[in-house]
């Protein structure tokens, strides 16, 4: 737990759950029991939606797996309740693992569809299986007993549930604010950027999905004991929709929102059943659905962030973010930077590209490019627009799969694999089209860069205290690189508020936070002021001195030729030249390549001019 408001919330909830049963009518307490049980499932769904950016339309399936398992174990075997609960939750998580393993690799809405199917399949299977009690289901499940005490009445059961729901909330809140939560938040802002910082999207999403199924399983266990009956209805679509409504109403991905949503929906349900028949005489059937449908629709249209968004909008006015003035001057030193122990000696080949080729339909964007980059050198990749520079970067960093050819970083094959493999080989990149994590501050952005340099996983994240020391280290390291690029004063501003140029510097800082041996920068100078360009160039030299290998794509040919040790020139996807800046200047093919392009291209003209001027000066 990090924020004070969380602590306040927990205390308030604790007091409410413990004291309200004493003063409220029993049926209200009874409804609160269901609201609490469903809220646990909704928190899980909320994590899935908020963190993994995925939705489950069949979350009741996991709820049912938990409830059925618990029901069967306690009524038919001698397994003690607590152990049964562990098995039940584990099975719910296993089911999610099996579904998520193939489906979460795919982009888009597939998980939603598959879980929807899963819920209906489970309902049918439960109805058709005598072992599962067919339509009657499993009945005669006793109320749980602990310490010689049976939790029979709504009030007692609510007290039994209280520590569970509090733990569920605290765990979820810790997770959201942890290394894992931060990484997944980044994935939702820009999957490709997060992955090039080492975030294994698939793995984390799968973990969160399995965790959310576990939450549903826990809810199922408590549901089974409280209701004493589990039947196929507990897997049905209507219940899944109710969970979804709870998560959406409170605010996608907000833990507290799910809790508020759980209570809101349950009491809305009760209230609508009373009110609708008064408004429409003779109304029978699931009349409360009209309210559910309308609320769901209105929330999605007007309040996609749910109640959480409304709450934030109300409180935001009180704390305006102060804009900073000029950026503080970056570290004025000249010495080597970010050297690290164990880094390959300067001159050791870090990146080895062979025969790299990419076809798009009938077009060959990159054709048989070879390139080696060693530690302690800056290599520039230049060429006219559309020459295939960014495509090369995308293939080298694992963002795009090559049609042919190989990419190796420090002996690891990258081609055909994911960007996080590239990052794991101590290499990372920035983007020509900025990939800012818009929902985080500058510090938050850069902290994602520390993903691979920290280790706390899902479980320890949820415990909170276990991750505290590492969090402090992450913050310290992140602030260090922020200082290096001169964004100290902006560190706590929302990244989205920064001007273009400073967002670019932030991306550089984010990449540096990875402590890479190999750094790919895609047009890092674009949008920077003259002073900022000089500072960045100085920074890159110092990094080189520290032993880092740097590849940059740049349109500013003047800057490139002044900075790079070697220059590779691409034209029409083919590497037409490779050599020192001097050799490149002297290469008539390079000038021709730039001259050959459309005369109207101002950048090409500039480049030709730069080549010519420099050549002239040097001579």
């Amino acid at each position, binding site marked *: 737990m990090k924020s004070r408001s969380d602590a306040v919330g927990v205390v308030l909830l604790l007091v409410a759950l413990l004291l309200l049963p004493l003063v409220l009518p*029993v049926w*209200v307490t009874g*409804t609160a029991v269901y609201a609490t049980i469903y809220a646990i499932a909704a928190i899980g769904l909320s994590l899935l939606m908020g963190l993994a950016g995925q939705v489950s339309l069949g979350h009741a399936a996991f709820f049912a797996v938990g409830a059925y398992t618990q029901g069967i174990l306690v009524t038919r075997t001698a397994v003690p309740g607590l152990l049964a609960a562990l098995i039940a939750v584990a099975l719910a998580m296993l089911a999610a693992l099996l579904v998520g393993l193939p489906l979460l690799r795919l982009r888009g809405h597939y998980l939603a569809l598959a879980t929807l199917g899963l819920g209906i399949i489970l309902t049918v299977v439960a109805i058709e299986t005598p072992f599962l009690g067919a*339509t009657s289901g499993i009945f005669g499940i006793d*109320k749980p007993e602990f310490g010689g005490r049976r939790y029979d*009445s709504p009030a007692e059961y609510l007290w039994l549930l209280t520590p569970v729901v509090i733990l569920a909330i605290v765990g979820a809140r810790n997770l959201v604010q942890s290394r894992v939560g931060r990484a997944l938040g980044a994935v939702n802002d820009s999957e490709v950027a997060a992955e090039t910082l080492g975030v294994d999207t698939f793995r984390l999403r799968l973990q969160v999905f399995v965790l959310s199924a576990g939450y549903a399983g826990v809810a199922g266990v408590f549901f089974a004991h409280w209701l004493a009956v589990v039947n196929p209805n507990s897997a049905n679509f209507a219940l899944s929709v109710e969970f979804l409504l709870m998560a959406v109403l409170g605010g996608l991905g907000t833990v507290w929102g799910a809790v508020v949503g759980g209570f809101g929906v349950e009491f809305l349900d009760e209230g609508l059943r009373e009110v609708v028949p008064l408004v429409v005489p003779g109304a029978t059937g699931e009349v409360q659905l009209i309210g559910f449908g309308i609320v769901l629709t209105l929330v999605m249209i007007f309040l996609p962030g749910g109640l959480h968004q409304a709450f934030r909008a109300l409180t935001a006015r009180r704390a305006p973010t102060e804009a900073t003035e000029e950026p503080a001057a970056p570290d004025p030193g000249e010495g080597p930077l970010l050297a690290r122990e164990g880094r390959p000696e300067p001159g050791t080949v870090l990146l080895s590209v062979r025969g790299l080729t990419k076809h798009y339909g009938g077009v060959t964007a990159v054709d048989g490019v070879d390139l080696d980059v060693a530690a302690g050198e800056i290599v520039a990749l230049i060429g006219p627009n559309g020459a295939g520079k960014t495509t090369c970067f995308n293939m080298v960093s694992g963002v795009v799969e090559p049609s042919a050819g190989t990419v190796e970083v420090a002996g690891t094959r990258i081609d055909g694999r994911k960007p996080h493999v590239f990052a794991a080989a101590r290499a990372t990149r920035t983007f020509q089209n900025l990939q800012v994590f818009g929902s985080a501050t500058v510090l938050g952005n850069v902290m994602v860069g520390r993903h691979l340099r920290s280790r706390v996983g899902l479980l320890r994240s949820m415990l909170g205290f276990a991750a505290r020391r590492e969090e402090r280290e992450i913050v310290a390291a992140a602030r260090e690189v922020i200082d290096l690029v001169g964004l100290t004063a902006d560190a706590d501003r929302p990244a989205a508020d920064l001007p273009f140029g400073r967002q670019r510097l932030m991306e550089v800082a984010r990449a540096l936070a990875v402590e890479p041996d190999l750094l790919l920068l895609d047009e890092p100078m674009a949008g920077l002021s003259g002073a900022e360009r000089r500072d960045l160039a100085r920074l890159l030299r110092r990094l080189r001195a520290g032993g880092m290998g740097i590849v940059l794509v740049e349109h500013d040919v003047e800057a490139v030729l002044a900075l790079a040790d070697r220059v590779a020139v691409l034209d029409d996807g083919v590497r037409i030249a490779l050599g020192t800046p001097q050799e490149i200047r002297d290469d008539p093919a390079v000038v021709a390549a730039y001259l050959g392009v459309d005369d109207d291209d101002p950048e090409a003209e500039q480049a030709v001019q730069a080549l010519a001027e420099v050549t002239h000066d040097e001579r």
Partner: protein
Amino acid sequence: MFGSAKRLAALLAAGALLAAGCAEEQPAAGGQGGEAEAGPFKIGAVLDITGAGASLGVPERDTLTLLTEELNAQGGIDGRQVEMIIEDNASTEDGAARAATKLITEDQVDILLGASRTGPSLAMRPIAESTPIPMISLAANAAIVNGSQWVFKTAQNDSVVIENIVEDAASKGYKTLALARDASGFGEGVRELFDEIGGPKGVSVIAVESFAPDATDFTAQMVNVRNANADAVVIWGIPPAAGLAQKAYVQLGVGKPVYQSHGIGNQVFLDTAAEAADGLVAPLGRLVVADQLPEDDPQKKVITDFIAAYRGEYDAAPSTFAGHAYDGFQLAVDALRNAGTEPEAVRSYLEGIDDFVGVSGTFSMSPEDHSGLTADDLVLVTVAGGKFQLVP
């Protein structure tokens, strides 16, 4: 609904309280009992008034309301009024459990009625047993009462229906049956009962097909039933599925005698199946053929009076479900009148019920039998010209 304004107020209060996240002292909004012993008898009913079971729960609610008014107008039970508190379970198990808990702890009712269907009734059973409080379910499945001390029911057991079918089949020399059954709770365990009851009489089920209660295409089931080439066919379902299955049975030319279950005793079935229904045989309660009963039938008066009263109030014929509610109410009132409100006394009185004439049949309970109806409480009915007719 009864006391809905009060509940609503409490609901809003609770909502406001929770939203504010504070726990100020708040006077309890719900009624806290407090009536003296001399107050009214309290009967609590949990019915499927909304949701999937609404076609059962609504006539049941109407029946209970009607009967309570009638009884109180006549002076109640020995001068004490009867308060009927009806809760909706929305056709869900959790709704039933919630409502039962509320009736027991908050309204402190003397006896529980409900629920309308098997699932919600099973959810109420453990609550009634652990309190303990006597409960009379209006649903059919024998699992509701099997092995229970405290739970009774008024709808016929499936076994009673099956006895009738098997006996008729055996008398006509049918040896083999093909069964197409509802895949939901209504058709559950039917095959096993046919084996158990039909076996000794030489009648066996040789093919079983199932259909979802909301199924619309019965081609597969009826083709397989046709291929089974059994001596007779049993369709076991509730309308509209039972009616659609009956239609498919005719369309696909199964061409064997057909039995339907006691689930078809209402107008919806006749409307759905239309002329395809002609000639089927089904064991139904006497309610649907009241006008054709002989004058000396012991149930004739009870049933015709009930139909007249129900028609007078609601301008419609009562369904068999209304009949189950009628029986539940009369049993509860009889027990309260004779045994008072002490749960154990009520329970043992109900177990001793003997020759109690109701709408669904004549009840004779025992500690082993908490259902109390036998095969004689059903009559074989056929359909001709869109109307139920007693089989002569």
